[in-house]
């Protein structure tokens, strides 16, 4: 199977190790990985600031870049949701949009639903799972605590089979970390207060490692952890799975 990687701009520039882990993890499961080099960004920073006109041509570029690939996989719930759930607001009359929306999957979704893998390996650590909001509530990677539906979590399902892993129980399993894109700077006070509360929850639950399907949330929490001299380590789920299944 051939897959085109859609790597979020901030991950490409700041977290190449996560992007590389995503590629290697997919290759481990027999996937042929391509990286279309013309890609830049999905346009979410502009769209979430309200500048739909600036996001629109950037979104159109995404369609051009990925047009010839059968599957697009992205190690970010937020950027995947931008394409699947928010591009229709921008590109209502674009006939090629449906094809891109239909073939773009978040990494955990792709592993869980398409490859149907349940990673086997060893990861003897206490791990706190941060449920990034857009993956959880816009892509429905999990049931979420608000709705009364049978409980499930695709992210958790990928971790549960690992030998030695202890997934700690959080008091608030799906509260937002406060990153929120430009919100992190525009509303710095609230953003950091929210992040510290999340970290404290993981700390009380005894997590050594905080993992998530979005490195943006983890970048925010890690920034606070290191400034505050805390001990937790953050790992994107792709890195964790790659390390565990080595």
């Amino acid at each position, binding site marked *: 199977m051939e897959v085109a990687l859609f790597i979020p701009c901030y991950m*490409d*520039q*700041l*977290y*190449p190790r996560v992007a*590389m882990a995503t590629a290697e993890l997919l290759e481990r499961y027999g996937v*042929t*990985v*391509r*990286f279309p*080099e013309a*890609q*830049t*960004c999905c*346009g979410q*920073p*502009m*769209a*979430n*600031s*309200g*500048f*739909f*006109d*600036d996001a629109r*041509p*950037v979104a159109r*570029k995404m369609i051009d870049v990925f047009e010839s690939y059968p599957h697009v996989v992205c190690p970010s719930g937020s950027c995947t949701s931008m394409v699947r759930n*928010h591009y229709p*607001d921008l590109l209502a009359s674009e006939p090629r949009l449906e094809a891109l929306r239909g073939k773009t999957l978040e990494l955990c979704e792709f592993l869980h639903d398409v490859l149907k893998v349940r990673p086997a390996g060893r990861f003897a650590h206490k791990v706190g799972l941060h449920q990034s*909001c857009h993956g*959880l*509530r816009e892509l429905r990677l999990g049931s*979420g*605590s*608000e*709705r*009364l539906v049978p409980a499930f979590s695709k992210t958790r399902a990928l971790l549960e089979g690992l030998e030695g892993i202890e997934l700690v129980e959080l008091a608030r399993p799906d509260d*937002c970390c*406060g*990153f*929120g*894109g430009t*919100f992190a*700077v*525009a*509303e*710095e*006070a*609230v953003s950091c*207060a*929210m*992040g510290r509360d999340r970290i404290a929850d993981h700390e009380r639950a005894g997590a050594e490692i905080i993992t998530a399907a979005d490195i943006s949330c983890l*970048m*925010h929490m*890690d*920034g*606070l952890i*290191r*400034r505050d001299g805390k001990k937790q380590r953050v790992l994107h789920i792709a890195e964790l799975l790659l390390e565990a299944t080595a």
Partner: protein
Amino acid sequence: MIDHAARAKTFVEDEVRLHWHDKAVWFVRQKRDLARAVLPEWEELRTLASQIKAHTLSRLADYLEEFEKKALAAGAQVHWARDADEHNLIVHGLLQARGVTRLVKSKSMLTEDCGLNPYLEARGIEVVDTDLGERIVQFRHEPPSHIVMPAIHLRKEEIGVLFHERLGTPVGLADPRALTEAARQHLRAKFLGAQAGLTGVNFAIASTGGVVVCTNEGNADLGTALPPLHIACMGVEKLVPGPRELGVFLRLLARSATGQAITTYTSHYHGPRPGAELHIVIVDHGRSGILARKEFRRALQCIRCGACLNTCPVYRHSGGHSYGVAVAGPIGSVLAPHLDAKKNAGLPFASTLCGSCTDVCPVRIDLHHQLLLWRGELAARGLVPLGKRFVSRVGRWVLLRTWAYRLFGKLARIFAPLLPRSGWTRQRELPPMPRESFRAQWRNRAGPR
């Protein structure tokens, strides 16, 4: 423009209050989770409620006329107000004509929104809010910070000090039971002396002409049972077609609001009681404008339960007063720009777009999506700061050119760590900057492609 970020910063600086507020409000969210868990049909109820409201709004003019006809037949009088000014004028006119100088009120976010209290007070009428939380914030000359729990930003010790000053309770008294009793005695005298009672309306039933008021304190009942004049103020969106539909909302409202199965008092008013008058004031105040906007009209389905406030992490970490409007939190940020887009242009940005509000809403309002749509509308109307617009334009130029993006990324990795601490780095470390981007590493990588 209301600067939510600046107001929120002040709130966050009081760390003890911040954590206490977050926990107190989250506790109510948890109570809601428990109350909902006993109804296996919860999600179907939400869908049904959403459909009933959507249906009613789609035939609003017909239902309003039916309601008026039935209400008149039941002996009530009906008044129509285009906006806040007309609403205040009508209410004042009713009071003035009957020589009323002492009015008791039960909770009504509509009158809060219309600024009724200061309007009447300026005209010599004593207005007493009889909901305990509302009375507390009224004593403090501040607006409610939550639509269901108006004084949730205050601790019992602060209320003790306030009641000592206003009601003469002993110094240091902070026992909630004793403080409530003091307020009860104080309010009892106000009820007995009132010449008119004003209530909000939770639901108006088109097929019967009745209005329904839900409270936990029975204050609406006392306020309407004693004085000879009852004024009920409602927005046009409060209508439901009939009593059958009402049942759906009564099952959702209290569970979503406070985690109770039903409010302690659910009072139905079909016409005035013998010898008294019932006046219903139906208010538009911007609502028909919202109804005209397809992408925003679902916001009119709101039943003011406050669940979106309780679940909102930004609300919990910034307090209701940081929003600067009568209705705080996600629903307030969605509604307020309709009334004054310029003044409230910052509110749709006071959100991480986490989506919890949308999933908790008992009438399935797409709250976080509407917040995003508002950002788009505000930017299109030139109501987003120029600096942000400039950054967005530059971003677009860079991101459309892969070479420029690569260069910009490289420069950012080199220079970002050298900048003085501000913005991101005031409280957070930057990630360690990698020497190469992923795309450079991928190009250099040996092995399977």
